[in-house]
């Protein structure tokens, strides 16, 4: 908490305003992850297990600390539930979003939500909730509507993005695959946001603004469903970890979790988002 307080103090000073920090550690805002049997499916946001989990409302605030800012975000509150089965922790986030944004063209942006955990869970010395800080890394699991759409309906093609597209030939239709590879741009260098994914969730680590890095091996899974103007997204991660880039969680543990939402229809992307302070989370024994 000390480092975070310093960050907030510095930032508040810089802005000349006081940041509104919700009372994250009040009794009402503790997120209880109840324990369920390991045979129960968790990944479907509509699975029956979720109706029994206790819901917590989490306030999101505008990202108005670092440029580019998002002073008037579209989403200011989310409703969160959590369960675990001894091996996996699953978090379900629901928020209202009238526009379902899952196609990414040059002027359109996808809906996204992220769950953040401190990697070293010392409640007395939490990282900054704003993507951690130097020496205090966080694990950020980001679900993207565009990736969900890829998995549900297949990877986009030029024809699915532009129905009237006519193109004579591409390099990979003429050249051997290895020779044509450089013409695939970021996919040729395995950029994790470009290459086809087997999960809609990017498993990432950060130590402050601008440092977000996607891990080579993703441990995160998830699924998001949009229905009647509400996104409902489940993100799961394994509890146990021996990695430096993930929290090592166990039943009975208390730690913290934070959230961020991007409303694609509002052109929110990157640092143009709404974010939450740390919320306490308790994993049932």
């Amino acid at each position, binding site marked *: 908490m000390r480092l975070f307080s310093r960050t907030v103090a510095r930032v508040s000073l810089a802005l000349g305003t006081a940041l509104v920090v919700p009372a994250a550690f009040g009794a009402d805002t503790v997120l209880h992850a109840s324990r369920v049997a390991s045979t129960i499916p968790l990944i479907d946001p509509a699975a029956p297990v979720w109706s029994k989990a206790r819901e917590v409302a989490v306030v999101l605030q505008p990202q108005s600390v670092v440029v580019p800012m998002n002073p008037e975000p579209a989403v200011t509150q989310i409703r969160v539930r959590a369960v675990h089965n001894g091996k996996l922790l699953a978090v379900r986030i629901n928020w209202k979003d009238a526009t379902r944004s899952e196609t990414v063209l*040059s002027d*359109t942006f996808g809906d996204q939500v992220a769950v953040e955990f401190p990697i070293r869970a010392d409640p007395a010395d939490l990282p900054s909730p704003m993507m951690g800080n130097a020496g205090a890394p966080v694990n950020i699991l980001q679900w993207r509507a565009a990736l969900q759409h890829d998995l549900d309906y297949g990877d986009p093609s030029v024809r699915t993005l532009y129905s009237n597209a006519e193109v004579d030939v591409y390099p990979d239709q003429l050249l051997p695959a290895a020779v044509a590879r450089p013409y695939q*741009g970021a996919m040729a260098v395995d950029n994790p946001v470009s290459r086809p994914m087997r999960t809609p969730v990017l498993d990432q680590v950060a130590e402050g603004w601008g440092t977000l890095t996607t891990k080579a091996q993703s441990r995160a899974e998830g699924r998001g469903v949009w229905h009647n103007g509400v996104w409902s997204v489940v993100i799961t991660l394994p509890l146990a970890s021996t990695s430096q880039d993930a929290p090592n969680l166990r039943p009975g543990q208390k730690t913290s979790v934070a959230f961020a939402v991007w409303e694609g229809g509002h052109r929110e992307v990157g640092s143009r988002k709404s974010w939450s302070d740390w919320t306490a989370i308790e994993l049932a024994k």
Partner: protein
Amino acid sequence: MSKVYNWQIGRQMEYPYEGVRPRRQFGLVMDLNKCIACQTCTVACKTTWTPGRGQEYMFWNNVESKPYGYYPLGWDVNILEKLGVQEVSGPVYSGKTLFEAAPDGEPVLGYLPDDLDYAHPNIGEDDSVGDMTRGAYLQAPHLQWMYYLPRICNHCTYPACLGSCPRQSIYKRPEDGIVLIDQRRCRGYRECVKGCPYKKSFFNPMTRVSEKCIGCYPAVESGRQTQCTITCIGKIRLQGFVSAPDEAREDNPIDYVVHVAKIARPLYPQFGLEPNVYYIPPVHVPPSFLAQMFGAGVEQAIATYRAASQDRKLIGALLLFGATPQIIHHYRVEGSFTIGYDDSGAELVRVPFKEPIFMRVAFDEKYQTRRSNMT
């Protein structure tokens, strides 16, 4: 924000990072009096770098008609309108740069074009839309005028794309000043697409990250000029390295054209990015229009260009345009030749001031055929 010195506007200005000039700066000069919009440069660039999926409407090099052609649609008039009316007449620019005009919470004044703005490059640009008035005659500047503007990334000294990226995924190489997007770190936020006033960062919807002109760095690294330069059939381009004015070398043809003769001007210097593509302005266009596009000094540039025959070193530099695929680091006028040299001083090319005339008889005895002599 840091204070950096921008020689093109003659003063210090604000920039998100400290001002550190590269050891050498990629530079390109284009003579707009010679461009015919054949698009050979565009095709050379396209086939070399952007024939892939998601790059269908992406032109790192494009040629548009001015004043009513754009790629993407309205790119310059849009940002000029957002910036508002500014005074551009004197050598020291007193108006606001795009960094100084940045709204609260933004790194730079910019805008994100609509996807459709990229959809129709060049369509309708050269259609005639009016008649000459009765009694009109040819005069300079022309009563009715247009010209072609070839554009690539300006590999700016103070790039707005770089200053806009919240992830520092864009970098300017210290060895040649070429500005690149790290294709491994970019996450496709499009802050650079929004921030670059020249709209030379593009979003690829298939890879979901942004891409831009790479200054043909593999060629430049091996001493070769860019594809768009060496394929130019009009020989309007010369690519090499440009110095800051206080370090200009008279024997560098680009420095001579830009800093000594001062006949080539940057594109929209008032934006404050210190772009490193320089244009020799078209002589037939009203100077008031050119002043907005190329800043103060345009009229002097045109006067010097018109009188180029009196400056053999200037003619010598201009003759090196399109004369060799290699990068010319030094040049020398010697007798009736201008000679270009590479970095090590080895001769690359020797161009005569006056092309020799070859005459041949009309009837070819060997093949028993007649040929017409063409000039």
